[in-house]
């Protein structure tokens, strides 16, 4: 009996096995052939191990970064990167995260089925990362890793991902010229703020798309290239400030300090690429299963999709937003160095996606001035808020990477602050959040577009 119990506990505690089994469950629910079930289960299982491997590579590259930073500037340096922090966190919180994600999917389907928020959130990696954020904060607040954390975490994740697309929908109608798709990304709060700023302070007469914009920056869309270049600059500057003596005696075992720094930057990009591959394998079976089931159970649902779906609508705003956001991030970094706080290095991936999207939202009602203001405001949020989320992330506080987008930062900080008042406050807060969403839906008029159809 004990042996069986141990077997069961061991499966639940090994996230790789657990996600593999979740994929098998999804495939069986879709009545797939036995070979497809086995194939899908194994790929998901191995995918988690690929991700863990990537986390190892990333940690190896971040350790010397943290040491050089500490030695050179005497404070902690942090590069916000969702992929990096989640990969590192999943090594410890993998099982809780997987189960929170499962509960979150059910919550999303139930809310979409029974409230006026008809959004089915289909961006798999965002579901995984928000689940991980919830797991880290709840466990760090002392909720343990049992069923309470799984249910509350799932309720939080599912509710958040059902309502954030609603914030963006007024702007999505303007951007895409229709009402068939919604925004399913983790910068939605920032995008909505950018959209409102554009509306208030912008001028819709001059769209970003009327300017001739140099396309030369386009090659930075290749993440391997842009991460290596940017991290290369950061690592090399750090190595120079820390000095050849420190690097070559303490870290590189004699290798030239500049070369060593550049190789570490490349290693970070390599780890990032491996993590992406792992995430892709983990989600390959789970997302189609979720989509199939959700679309069947929720009539006239609206799919909330990943952020690049809006990029083709305003290609100039994409580059302008990245540039403005990154500039704001860089200026913020120098101010932090001056203030001797923890220093947030502008992460190229976060500023790209969130800056680009914020500019498109700002442009929607506010033209180019709206785009600049929108991406600058969003840039300020993602540059400064990481300082406030670090303290609520428990043992991840000292990691050299953290969450990057507004929908991790703002709800995460609020959840973490609640956690400091104990588990009763957390439980009430999360349940209260869901209740408020349901009440808003009851009081809300039916969205106009439903009548027009």
């Amino acid at each position, binding site marked *: 009996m004990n042996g069986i119990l141990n077997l069961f506990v061991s499966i639940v505690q090994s996230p790789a096995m657990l996600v593999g089994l979740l994929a098998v469950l999804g495939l069986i629910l879709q009545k797939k052939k036995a070979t497809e079930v086995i194939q899908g289960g194994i790929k998901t299982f191995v995918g988690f191990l690929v991700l863990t491997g990537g986390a190892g590579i990333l940690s190896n590259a971040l350790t010397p970064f943290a040491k050089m930073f500490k030695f050179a500037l005497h404070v902690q340096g942090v590069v916000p990167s969702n992929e990096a922090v989640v990969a590192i966190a999943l090594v410890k919180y993998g099982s809780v995260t997987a189960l929170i994600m499962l509960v979150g999917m059910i919550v999303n389907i139930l809310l979409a089925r029974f409230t006026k928020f008809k959004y089915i959130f289909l961006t798999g990696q965002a579901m995984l990362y928000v689940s991980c954020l919830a797991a880290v904060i709840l466990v760090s607040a002392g909720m343990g890793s049992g069923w309470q954390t799984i249910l509350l975490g799932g309720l939080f994740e599912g509710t958040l991902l059902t309502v954030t697309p609603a914030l963006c929908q007024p702007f999505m109608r303007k951007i895409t010229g229709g009402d068939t798709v919604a925004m399913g990304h983790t910068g939605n709060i920032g995008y909505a703020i950018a959209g409102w700023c554009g509306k208030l302070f912008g001028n819709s007469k001059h769209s970003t798309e009327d300017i001739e914009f140099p396309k030369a920056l386009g090659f930075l869309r290749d993440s391997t290239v842009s991460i290596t270049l940017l991290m290369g600059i950061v690592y090399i500057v750090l190595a120079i400030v820390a000095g050849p003596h420190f690097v070559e005696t303490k870290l590189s075992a004699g290798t030239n300090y500049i070369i060593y720094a550049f190789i570490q930057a490349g290693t970070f990009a390599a780890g990032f690429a491996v993590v992406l591959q792992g995430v892709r394998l983990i989600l390959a079976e789970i997302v189609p299963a979720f989509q199939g089931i959700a679309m069947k159970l929720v009539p006239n649902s609206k799919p909330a999709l990943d952020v690049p779906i809006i990029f*083709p609508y305003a290609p100039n705003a994409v580059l302008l937003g990245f540039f403005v956001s990154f500039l704001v991030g860089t200026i913020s970094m120098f101010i932090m160095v001056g203030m001797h706080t923890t220093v947030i290095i502008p992460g190229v991936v976060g500023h790209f996606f969130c800056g680009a999207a914020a500019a498109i939202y700002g442009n929607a009602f506010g033209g180019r001035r709206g785009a600049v203001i929108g991406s600058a405001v969003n840039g300020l949020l993602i540059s400064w808020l990481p300082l406030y989320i670090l303290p609520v992330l428990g043992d991840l506080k000292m990691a050299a990477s953290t969450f990057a987008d507004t929908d991790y930062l703002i709800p995460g900080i609020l959840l973490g602050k609640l956690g400091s008042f104990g588990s009763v406050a957390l439980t009430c807060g999360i349940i209260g959040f869901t209740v408020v969403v349901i009440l808003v839906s009851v009081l809300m008029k039916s969205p106009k577009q439903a009548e027009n159809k």
Partner: protein
Amino acid sequence: MKFEALCQSGLGSSFMVQMNIQNLLKQENVKEDIQVDHSDIGSATPDQADYFFLDPTLETSAGNLPKDRLIILNSLVDPNELKEKVNAILDKEGIEHS
């Protein structure tokens, strides 16, 4: 025959395009085995697939991929455009579909 959808990280939008293509092939009653996958633009190589699907803003990052096998989708969410472009490939390759 293999199709590959590409986006910047190869996580969300390319995966969605992949699922849309798979559904479309089913609708079109394509009997031939066509594999559909997704990836990030940075790690895509010419030998990975016969055709690559991407949005126009990524074209400058796809320098290492053969131009005649790039399928540019001006909208990632327009089913008609996808249908038109996929059917054009099927016709060109002589693959039966309805």
